[in-house]
């Protein structure tokens, strides 16, 4: 199956003429037809004839030319319905394209459709959606993770070559981990947020999801960079990540802040064999990460969602789900006069401390390795019915969003028959290093090649 190839392998086949974008698109559409009813990935699928016409007209200008991908429905797409998985926007057709969409179109990638997610990014299981929960392709009685659940499953179940997710507190890494794919939460400012429907603006990040690290590196070098439409995008130069994946891990120090479980232990053994030095580091603020996140993110979301009043577009406010209303109300409360100092301001102070924690840790080590999630993919209904458990699922992921640093999530084994992954976190703009380490790991392991039998 061509969809098992890496992007660079497929691009080579395109150029030699043995495979065409139309062939690959047809493979995607077949898999979608077969499995989407079971997995509930797509909110909006583009018209087949339109897609095939686009595939026939591909000019091979970049490595992504003719490569089919899916987009989390959190990005606005001109003339294509964009819902953020909420009934509030169930009829909303944007008038412009997000920067990431424009960049991918310019690169020649083919957008297949818009994927299901937790509405507005509010969740870690892709169950808080008005379009029905997304199912895990490894075990359909389990959730896919979230909030970029549909995007992760589309890649895992071979319905697209890659996906663009959005990560505010783990929303790329959690479903990547639970579905057995690779995902990157970028440094804040690395990729333009213009056109990404905001959940929590100071934490939101736009990133790639794919089968392996090499693919991620290829995608990132095409979507990263400063954007005059996003004042928080960084002028930091974008390396050609994919040309620079080889690295001797001999001089690399990997910090471990937590007692590793079996899958992580195995991964560390591999990294050690590759030459890395493993050492303990401490992140004393880790225990405050979830409370900090669940004050900052709801505060910002309470403001960001204020525009969805149903006056100019979309439906009225009664269409927000329970979980979204909970976050809006918590945020409104945290920002209110008399509570601001105790909640929002305190959380900002904790944010500074968390950044300091990481800075201290990165004086000792180059990167930090942590699990993606504290558990494997939960059963359907388990998280959505328990808001506190739902929040705690984000424990290992939210610190990187709070600190703004990048984190690469890659698969490292199976537990209870479903995939588990680990994160490699690094300092600001260390994506190149994270890719190198992740790529070297994937050169000596096969976890990223496993695919669900569905």
């Amino acid at each position, binding site marked *: 199956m061509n969809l098992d190839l890496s992007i660079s392998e497929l691009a080579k086949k395109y150029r030699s003429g043995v495979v065409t974008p139309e062939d690959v698109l047809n493979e995607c559409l077949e898999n979608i037809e077969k499995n989407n009813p079971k997995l509930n990935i797509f909110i909006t699928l583009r018209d087949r004839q339109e897609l095939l016409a686009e595939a026939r007209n591909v000019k091979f200008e970049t490595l992504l030319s003719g490569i089919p991908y899916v987009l989390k429905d959190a990005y606005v797409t001109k003339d294509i319905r964009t819902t953020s998985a909420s009934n509030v926007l169930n009829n909303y057709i944007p008038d412009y394209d997000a920067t990431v969409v424009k960049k991918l179109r310019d690169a020649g990638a083919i957008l297949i459709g818009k994927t299901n997610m937790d509405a507005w990014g509010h969740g870690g299981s892709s169950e808080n959606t008005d379009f029905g929960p997304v199912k895990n392709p490894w075990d359909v009685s389990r959730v896919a993770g979230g909030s970029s659940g549909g995007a992760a499953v589309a890649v895992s179940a071979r319905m697209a070559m890659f996906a663009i997710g959005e990560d505010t507190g783990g929303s790329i890494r959690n479903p990547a981990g639970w579905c057995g794919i690779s995902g990157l939460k970028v440094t804040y400012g690395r990729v333009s947020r213009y056109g990404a429907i905001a959940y929590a603006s*100071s934490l939101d990040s736009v990133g790639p999801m794919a089968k392996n690290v090499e693919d991620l590196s290829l995608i990132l070098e095409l979507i990263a960079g400063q954007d005059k439409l996003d*004042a928080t995008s960084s002028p930091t130069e974008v390396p050609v990540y994919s040309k620079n994946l080889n690295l001797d891990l001999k001089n690399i120090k990997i910090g471990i802040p937590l007692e590793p479980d079996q899958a992580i232990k195995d991964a560390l053994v591999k990294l050690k064999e590759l030459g890395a030095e493993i050492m303990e580091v401490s992140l004393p603020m880790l225990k405050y990460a979830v409370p900090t996140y669940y004050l900052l993110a709801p505060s910002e979301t309470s403001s960001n969602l204020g525009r969805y009043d149903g006056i100019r577009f979309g439906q009225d406010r009664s269409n927000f789900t329970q979980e979204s209303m909970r976050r809006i109300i918590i945020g409104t409360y945290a920002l209110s006069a008399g509570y601001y100092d105790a909640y929002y301001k305190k959380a900002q102070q904790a944010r500074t401390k968390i950044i300091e924690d990481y800075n201290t840790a990165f004086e000792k080590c180059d990167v930090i390795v942590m699990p993606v999630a504290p558990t494997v993919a939960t059963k359907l209904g388990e998280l959505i019915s328990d808001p506190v458990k739902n929040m705690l699922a984000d424990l290992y992921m939210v610190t990187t969003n709070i600190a703004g640093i990048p984190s690469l999530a890659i698969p490292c084994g199976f537990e209870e028959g479903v995939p588990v992954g680990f994160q490699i976190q690094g300092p600001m703009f260390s994506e190149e290093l994270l890719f190198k380490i992740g790529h070297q790991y994937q050169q000596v392991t096969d976890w990223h090649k496993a695919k669900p039998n569905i």
Partner: protein
Amino acid sequence: MSWQTVLGFEIHIELSTNSKMFCGCPANHFNTPPNSQVCPVCLGLPGALPVPNAKAIEWCIKLGLALGCKINLQSKFDRKNYFYPDLPKGYQISQYDQPLCVEGNLLGHKIRRVHMEEDTGKLLHQGSETLIDFNRSGVPLVEVVTEADFNDSNDSDNFLKELQQIIRALGISSCDMEKGSMRLEANISVSPDESFPNYKVEIKNVNSFRFVKKAVDFEVSRQIKLLETGQTPIQETRGFKETTGETFSQRVKEEAHDYRYFPEPDIPPFEFTQAQIEKWRSELPILPSQKRLQLVELGLSENYARIISADPEMYDVFMKNPTKQTADLLINKREARVVSNIPEEKIREVVSKVISANIAIVESIKAGKTQAIGALIGQIKKELGDIDIPLTQKIISEIMKL
């Protein structure tokens, strides 16, 4: 009992930058077709992000410098959250605890702060429907907040006119009250002694200096009357009716708004260097007060200096040949702004004729309806064409022995 007026102002000025505060749409919205100058950013569409207009920030700081403010080298934008249909994002991007400029002074009055924000859209009520025009949404708006240290409406009138002149000298806004590029809110209360009153009346939507003066005068006497009968004026927002010269209640504030201010996460905080600020300071034009001082030093009277400094054209002409003769010529010319070649005798002749032919009008003028002089002048103009109006008025007064 002597009453102490407590009077302060919040002044909004729309900047005349090319583009809006946070997007590339044109900022000039006067007389444009509704919703013809909008984009995802100023419509608050999902996913759109604000990018601050550097020119607007520079201009706001220059105004602050012209008003003798301290400039905060570290500043930021904040979100002011409230719901109103003309505010498409559900929040206004404004400044809360780190305004660009603080602690200024103008004509002896303290300026608390000068900060940068964005304008809202406009609601147009048509019958039972309300339409929204977003052309004004996101236009750069500077807010100048004074301390409540004005004694009376003469005091504030001078201040506001001076502020307008400074802004026009800077060339950053048309600062036109009728067009809404300068908007005032007066906060008025009255105290029996030096203590601060426990209420505040806000007057909004007054669109000329003359009316501001009238509104302040009316409001002060209204409040004094209430206080004299032992009542406390209620805390409210009042409008001004031009036809009657009276203020009227618009909205009684039940409770203070909670705007849930927090730092705008879409815009990184600013950091200015002192060198940057000094560069901007060096670019300031000669301000009206400096011009006046300069003219007085050149030997003009305070009165002449005030008149000539207020008019850039007159000032330029005077400065080319700064003599008493030039000043006399300019002032005389100004008073006969329409240069008339008609001899005074001819005017006298026509004035006499018109007066004897309009007994009714003459009677009403004598009875105190002085504005009816305009009707006489109209008839004289019909006869003679362009006339020297001040001269003609003088002649009318003489003949009528007013």
